[in-house]
């Protein structure tokens, strides 16, 4: 995987120039030239990222260096203790959960893990973030624990999809997701969801019912991967760019549709270019949001959570009653 994406061609060219200069003997003039080029890269990158197309956002959301759950845990939480297994069949490695402290208060953390960028072994261990039924059941088991002790839940969503394999179907991945959707709606504790990478259809939604749903600026959230949509509707997987456009999967699109509550900005050039800054921005949004949802009574929160999802599909906007 190269350091740059295909649409970052101008940046790749500048990086090449820096490489060439680096190969020359070090002089003050050369160093100044490198610094100038680096500044130029930042400007070009910020410019590019100001007007990304939906397909380009898909590429950014899937970037191997994009900060994932493990990075957020390290940056935002202290004393993370991982909890394993669904107590029925196995421990799924594509969904991780555990308790930790967030700004001094105990919380439960749940999220998908795709595996560290460039580490193929880890990616395989994590099944590239494709969770099996056990993952969804483990998540719910842990969330019930949080409910029992009135601890808020913070969810990070980043998955291509639930794992489409024989054993997934045999062990009821559909049932596992369905039960989570139903039970998370009435779970009696605050839930804040952050879509931090790929929100891959049911596999994402299966842990993403909450009081607030935040989305990182360049994350995506879709009913089907653009490639799959292109293959079915266009009968040509190469139409993924058109499908990404048509499906309206970007954070601004979903904010317009009232499917998410807020967009968490990313550093110019995307979270993968500056994970620490990206984590700080998530931290800021999370602290504010968590305080908000913890401030209301359990009854009011339950009602608001129901109404939030109940009103997805708006009368007079998304559908009408009669001609």
């Amino acid at each position: 995987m190269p350091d740059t994406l295909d649409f970052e061609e101008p940046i790749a060219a500048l990086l090449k120039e820096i490489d060439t200069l680096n190969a020359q003997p070090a002089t003050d003039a050369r160093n100044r030239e490198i610094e100038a080029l680096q500044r130029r890269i930042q400007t070009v990158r910020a410019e590019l990222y100001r007007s990304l197309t939906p397909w380009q956002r898909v590429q950014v959301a899937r970037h191997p260096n994009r900060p994932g759950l493990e990075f957020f845990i390290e940056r935002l939480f202290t004393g993370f203790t991982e909890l394993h297994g669904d107590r029925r069949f196995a421990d799924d490695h594509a969904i991780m959960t555990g308790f930790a402290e967030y700004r001094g208060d105990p919380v439960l953390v749940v999220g998908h893990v795709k595996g560290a960028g460039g580490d193929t072994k880890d990616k395989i261990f994590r099944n590239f973030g494709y969770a099996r039924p056990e993952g969804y059941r483990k998540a719910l088991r842990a969330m019930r624990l949080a409910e029992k002790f009135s601890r808020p839940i913070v969810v990070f969503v980043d998955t291509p999809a639930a794992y489409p394999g024989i054993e997934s179907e045999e062990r009821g991945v559909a049932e596992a997701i369905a039960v989570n959707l139903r039970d998370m709606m009435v779970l009696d504790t605050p839930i804040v969801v952050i879509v931090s990478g790929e929100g891959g259809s049911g596999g994402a939604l299966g842990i993403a019912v909450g009081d607030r749903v935040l989305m990182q600026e360049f994350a995506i959230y879709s009913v089907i991967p653009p490639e799959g949509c292109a293959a079915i509707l266009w009968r040509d997987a190469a139409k993924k760019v058109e499908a990404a456009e048509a499906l309206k999967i970007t954070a601004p699109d979903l904010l317009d549709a009232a499917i998410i509550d807020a967009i968490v900005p990313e550093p110019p050039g995307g979270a993968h270019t500056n994970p620490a800054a990206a984590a700080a921005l998530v931290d800021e949004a999370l602290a504010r949001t968590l305080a908000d949802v913890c401030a209301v009574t359990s009854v009011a929160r339950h009602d608001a959570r129901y109404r939030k999802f109940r009103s997805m599909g708006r009368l007079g906007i998304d559908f009408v009653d009669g001609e």
Partner: protein
Amino acid sequence: MAWFKKTKKPIVTSAKEKPSRVPEGLWVKCPGCQQAIYNKDLAANLSVCPKCSHHFRIGAAERLRMLFDGDWVEHDKDLVSTDPLRFTDTKPYRARLKASVESTGLKDAIITATGTIEGLRAIVASMEYGFIGGSMGVVVGEKITRAIERAIDERVPIVIVCCSGGARMMEGARSLMQMAKISGALARLDRARLPYIAVLTDPTTGGVTASFAMLGDLNIAEPKAQIGFAGPRVIEQTIRQKLPEGFQRSEFLLEKGMLDLIVDRRELKQVIANALGFMGAVKAPAPAAVEEAVATEPAPQA
């Protein structure tokens, strides 16, 4: 938009008026046993092959006719998608909607209605595969949710007959969110201790399976129906091998523990009625008795 609620007269649909959706022509070749069946015989047998019991796919109205004792009252009949994404693939979504409206006579892929099943008052939501593959967009999600909320308000059981390829791509993430919306309404139905029976027919896949289809107090399937989450082709591409015979069929799911029972269509109504009886549903009073009960209540004071 008007601030007042439009009051609507209930639309009573006669069980006799609806056209049968058995294939055109005098004869049909059964895909199960390859034999020619007289269309009238098929229709008289609830679209089940009299020779091999192959279950032909049936339309939403035919399903209601089969489950209800007689007439039913349809709900939310006029909900229509606005095509919120202005979606176009090789064809505009609007054109697909229009073609489906013309071919099915419905405005979207579901009918929701109240009637009686062996004398038990119940709401049935019945999906129509002929309408964009029975796919679930905002209208399907809204109609099912309203049906569940109505069941809670009126304290009656609900039966949802699934027949769907899953969430409707042309409405994007809005379709996906219907899964959460419906499942949330079902959580409330659970708390109200009201019966919900999911009937899974061929096919029940994708986002429909991963939400309400799997959440019944009972999950009942018709024989040999395709039921699953991921599509078989997607799975084959992932695992790079052929899927075993019978994978994702009702019998496979029953063996794996995902279904309560598989029921032949010709016995479905009776089995549902028995289950509703177990769950405490009571016979609806005759219409005359209802009017009397209302009439004897003291008139509200002005």
